[in-house]
């Protein structure tokens, strides 16, 4: 009950945030976006959700530097909000500049804990520079979904 309320609150607050109010998205917004993906996944199924996530014209899932990404449990990318080239690619062995197996690690968080935050480096879609990023991931059926913030 409480979580439902919180979820609703978060969702409303995100919605209430006026576009362009800040240059970058916040962690809360990132979590809210994950929840939206989850809601759509629940409501419309995997295919519609993945399509919407990968479609940059869907504002619900593309807000400044915020975007969701969805992988299956093997590390195969099934949907990406910023880099459609990755869709269909298995990135389980992908490393960032620090040598972190970020896909695998986030898969493990989603798999073992259900949800959590993970820090790594990733190119910012706004400037294509590799920046520090913290992503919130959650398990979603046979998949997991994440949304991160650049710092």
């Amino acid at each position, binding site marked *: 009950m409480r979580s439902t309320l919180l979820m609703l609150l978060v969702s409303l607050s995100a919605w209430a945030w006026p576009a362009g109010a800040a240059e970058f998205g916040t962690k809360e917004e990132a979590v809210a976006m994950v929840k939206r993906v989850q809601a759509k996944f629940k409501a419309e199924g995997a295919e519609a959700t993945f399509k919407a996530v990968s479609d940059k014209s869907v504002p619900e899932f593309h807000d400044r530097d915020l975007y969701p990404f969805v992988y299956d449990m093997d590390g195969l990318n099934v949907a990406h909000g910023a880099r*459609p*080239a990755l869709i269909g*690619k298995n*990135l389980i*062995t*992908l490393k*960032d500049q620090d040598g972190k197996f970020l896909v695998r690690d986030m898969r493990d968080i989603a798999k073992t804990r259900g949800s959590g935050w993970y820090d790594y480096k990733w190119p910012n879609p706004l400037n294509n520079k*590799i920046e520090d990023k913290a992503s919130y991931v959650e398990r979603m059926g046979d998949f997991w979904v994440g949304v991160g913030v650049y710092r």
Partner: protein
Amino acid sequence: MTPPRGWPILRKFDNLSVQFKASVASALLLVCLLALGAHAYLTSTRSAAGLRVLSTELVPKQQAFSDVGNAVVATHMKIFRYVSWASNGLGEKVLKPLEDEIQVELDASSARMDALTQRPDLSDDETAALQVLVAKWRSCKAQALDTIDVGRTDAPMATMMIGQTDDSFEAVDSDLRKMTQAIVAKATALQSQLSSNAQRNQQVVVWVTLLGLLISVVVAIVISRSIVRPIRAITDVMQRLSAGEIDVEMDHGVRSDEIGKMANAIHVFRKNIIDKDRVEQTLAEAIEAITEGFSLYDAEDKLVVCNSHYREMFSYGPDTVIPGMSFERIVGSAVGRVVVEGAGDGQAWLAQRLEQHRNPVEPHVQHRSDGRWIRVSERLTGVGGVVATYTDITELKARESELDAAHAQVTALNEELRSDNRRMEGELDVTRRLQMMLLPTREELQQVDGLEIACFMQAALEVGGDYYDVLQHEGRVKIGIGDVTGHGLESGVVMLMTQAIVRALLTSGESDPVRFLSVLNTALFGNVQRMGSDKNLTLCLLDYAMGEVRVSGQHEQVIVLRRDGSVEMIDTIDLGFPIGLENEIAAFVGQSTVQLQRGDGVVLYTDGVTEAEDMEREQYGLGRLAAVLKAHWAGSAEAIKHAVIADVKRFIGAQTVYDDITLVVAKQT
């Protein structure tokens, strides 16, 4: 030959044949050579196999693996270049050919990878490693393609992805390097093995060569010791033998090889020489020992051998008769010194002598002037030579003349003997006549009262000295029978004297048998002594009066026959003693008395009857005599006498009558 020296172990080789030793030595060297050859062949085969593995397997394999590695690295570089170019915003014009190039190279590497897995020379480890590698390569290739694909539109992301691509390529490259290194390590191991093989091969060759050398040295020593040295010794012995040295010491029967056989053969040869010498020596001694002169000339008439008697026959120095001289020379020089009777002037005799010598026919006799007689006996030998014996027969000649004289004497004696014999024959005749002359007449016998008497006497060829008599004086009848020892005139005379004395005593009226025999004996003994003779006689006297017979004196048994044919015997051994042997015999004389009834009777005989022999020299015997008497006793005395004499003569048959036969049958009427 020196006694065997050196190591005893080498002496053992002496009993092996030289051929065997040579064969063994060759075989040993051959074995060395074969071992060397076989070793070289095997080693080179192994080396060749190793090199082949090295050159046809390991090196190409290593090459193939490193080729793949190089290609993978090159492709990796190109991917990196692609991402780099993409990040720098180069357009599709530039990127597309590179992408195509990368695509081609990735496929080529895949093909090469597949080709590697298809290699037939892979080990199990390599096959397993390759399977892992191919799997890695597949993900690596996928990642590379993903990176290119991303890079085409999203360079920053491709840059992100280059890290994992690097890892994949690194893994593949590392695996390939490891495999290549393993192959290189294998090749290196093989190389070092080949190298150590070569070294060992070297050592084997050196050692086997040394062994061969050692064998050669040992063989040389053995051959020198057991062949060369003994042969040298044997050669030395042979040289000394051929130089005439006989007492050469040498070993034989020590070894059983060819050299041992040579030594044995030489030993036998030497022994034969010694034996031959000994035989010649013995022959010479034998020839010398002959008591005659002996010589042997060869076909060329040269003296081969002679003895000292032969030399002596020629009566001059030994140096003039020596082997090698011709007979003509020896005999020629003898002419003038050895004078042979009838040799005349010498030359003619010499020619005749040479002719005799060359064609010997029969022995001839030389009468030497020194008085010696020599018989020369020559004979041709089978090989054309002449062997001669010179026998000194001087002694023989002397014996011959002695014999001639003896013969003349014997002839003369024979003449004498012949006349003596005639005289003796006359004597025997006289004796026989004397014996018969004094026998009682038939008329005298018929006059005896109470007794029917038949007598028989036959003298042997030489008169035997039998005696019998029947005398009657003043109613007393005396029957005597006796046998003088020996034959001939003396026996006859003793018998005559006995008859005379018996008649004299009877006539003198002597009636006591003991005194009668005793006086008879003493008288006869005196006469026999005077005659210087050893004659004596057995004598039995029967005194008959009125059917009573008194027997005394020692002679054969007296047979008493009864009218019914039964037979009794009176042994006279204890009734007297041989007459004329001793001076006094009275102590020995006894008497035995027999009563005769009508038809009874007594029979007297000498040993001429009982000891008469038949053709098988069996004696007639008392048994036969008694049987005949018994069978014919029923007849008259004369008939009984005839039956006995006829039976005895039939028994004697053609056998000689050795002794006088005398029989007296007196039957009571």
